[in-house]
């Protein structure tokens, strides 16, 4: 029993390493996950200046507003978009099917994809926070560090589950990419990530933002960095909503996830044409 577990964990570790290696060889993924949010922080601060303004978190600098929000955006796009597109692409290429035909435990393979995405998210968040603190004097307190870490863990777990659900419903890359962007981007606008609406936001947009998890992830993480919040600054209610979304994502994925390539008219003929490309020696 114990040896099965240790073998399984060893396999899980191998899968995490493999996913990381593949991630760094996919420049477009690395750019959108890590560079893009940092670029936004630099641009927003340059465009709007780093002055104090009235936000939902009180009167703070714009970098104090954008740093945690964009960190959360990086974490969400690494897990939700990253996992969703990666798995849809692997399914379409028949890689998931190959994996399923080997003795590799399915949980270890999927665990590798998820934990690698969480690791990349941690890198993205760390880079963002370090940049915010070093370059813009963003507030960070040791007493609220547990809240930051717990919020990060719960938030990425939730978005990872939703990424698994996304790849279960949008089963090809051509479906998963627009589905991921069409859900995450608009939400980022109404979830106090890209735009500091404060309380002026129309109520129906506020309600929509409250239903979906991105706003709760962003608010909870921002409160953990907010100079006006009292330590330990846990937002339990928001964390509970994130956990509810985790359950929703896990349920959808457990029912709909498939290792089989979707049967599409073009698929096998494409594979054949690739295969008949000849054998250049």
């Amino acid at each position, binding site marked *: 029993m114990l040896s099965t577990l240790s073998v399984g964990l060893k396999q899980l570790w191998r899968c995490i390493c*493999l996913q990381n290696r*593949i991630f760094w060889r996919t420049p477009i993924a690395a750019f959108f996950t890590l560079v893009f949010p940092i670029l936004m922080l630099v641009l927003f601060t340059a465009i709007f200046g780093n002055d104090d303004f009235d936000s939902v978190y009180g009167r703070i600098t714009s970098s104090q507003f954008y740093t945690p929000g964009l960190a959360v955006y990086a974490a969400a796009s690494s897990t939700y978009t990253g996992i969703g597109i990666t798995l849809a692409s692997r399914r379409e290429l*028949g890689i998931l099917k*190959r994996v399923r*035909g080997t003795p590799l435990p399915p949980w270890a393979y999927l665990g590798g994809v998820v934990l690698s995405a969480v690791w990349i998210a941690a890198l993205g968040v760390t880079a963002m926070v370090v940049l915010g603190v070093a370059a813009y004097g963003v507030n960070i307190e040791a007493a609220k560090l547990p809240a930051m870490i717990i919020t990060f863990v719960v938030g990425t777990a939730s978005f990872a589950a939703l990424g698994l659900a996304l790849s279960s419903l949008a089963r090809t890359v051509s479906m998963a990419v627009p589905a991921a962007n069409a859900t995450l981007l608009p939400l980022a606008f109404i979830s106090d990530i890209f735009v500091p609406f404060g309380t002026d936001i129309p109520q129906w947009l506020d309600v929509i933002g409250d239903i979906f998890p991105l706003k709760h992830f962003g608010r909870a993480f921002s409160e953990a960095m907010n100079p006006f919040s009292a330590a330990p600054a846990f937002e339990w209610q928001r964390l509970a909503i994130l956990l509810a979304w985790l359950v929703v994502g896990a349920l959808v994925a457990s029912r709909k996830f498939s290792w*089989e390539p979707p049967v599409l008219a073009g698929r096998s003929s494409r594979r054949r044409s690739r*295969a008949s*490309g*000849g*054998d250049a020696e």
Partner: protein
Amino acid sequence: MPEVRRFRARDTPHLCLSAGALRGIAEAAQRLRGQRVVFATVNTAVAVDRLVKDYGSARAVDGVSFEVARGEVFALLGPNGAGKSSIVEILEGHRKRTSGTVCVLDTDPETAGSDFRERIGIVLQSSGIDPELTVREAINFYGASYQNPTATNELIELVELQDKADSRISTLSGGQQRRIDLALGLVGDPEVVFLDEPTTGFDPAARRRGWKLVERLASQQRAVLLTTHYLDEAEALADRVAVLAKGRIVAEGTPAQLRARAGSALISFVLPDHIDTVADLLAPLSGEIVGRQSSVQITTDTPTADLAHLTGWAHQRGLELEGLTVTKPSLEDVYLGLVGDGDDGGRVDAVDAVDLVDETLDQSGSDLTNEGEGVS
């Protein structure tokens, strides 16, 4: 579902029966008790009995039965859509069957876990490889999923990719990628190898080398189940061939037996345009008429008598039978006869097919690969 009980030859060491006799016992038991009996000799790696697979209302596999012994190459030969891939994917555990019994290495693939996948190797048409990895990395990664993987360098040499070992898979040609497929199918040192059209996309030279590799697998006492729509591939590689059409096995046997089925000669000619009724021409022939349009093909064991009749008939009417030839039938002639004419694919009746199986199984103790049938 009746209760399924399994008896293995090694469970009853005092019994020493041929596979044919076992089948006889199995059939008798079934008649008596109404029970389904699957038997397998120690040597049997794959046993399939009355397998059925439906996709919605479409029946893709319609009561297929066959067995593959260790050290044997068994080919499922048939056109696209005949049900080859469905059968193979059920045996691999990728798909669930609708009914029937399937036994691979004493295991039901549908409920099998990692232990089962340790022992099988899969080369599928539809499974890809991570394009971001190098050849070596891919073989290392998938190999480490098994308890006793074959050394990566050995496999790279086996599929002749030494030059490309550290190239990204995305930069390789289609044929080279198929060769990694092959390497990944063998990396776990499998007892049963499933090869789904393994040489599609290979150039002729690579194809020959692929064949050598498959022969070597069988000589290492692995069971090889091959699907192909290349006749020459089935003929060159397979100890036994099952011809599949519309989800049914329409013939089964060694390539030589299948060829023999076509008679000793094939007479072909083109009917003159203005001949409407050919009953008086064709009826007295002893052979089987394969083509039915203006191009007529007759397979026969008595070519002399049939030719005499044909030429006599034509000569009497002052006709010239264009393109009249007599040839030794190829496997292709048999194959086209079996799967070609659409609805009448089931020319070989069931009893006939069972006889063929028994004949082959009786020999399974001896060396099946030495059939003495030279392959040109």
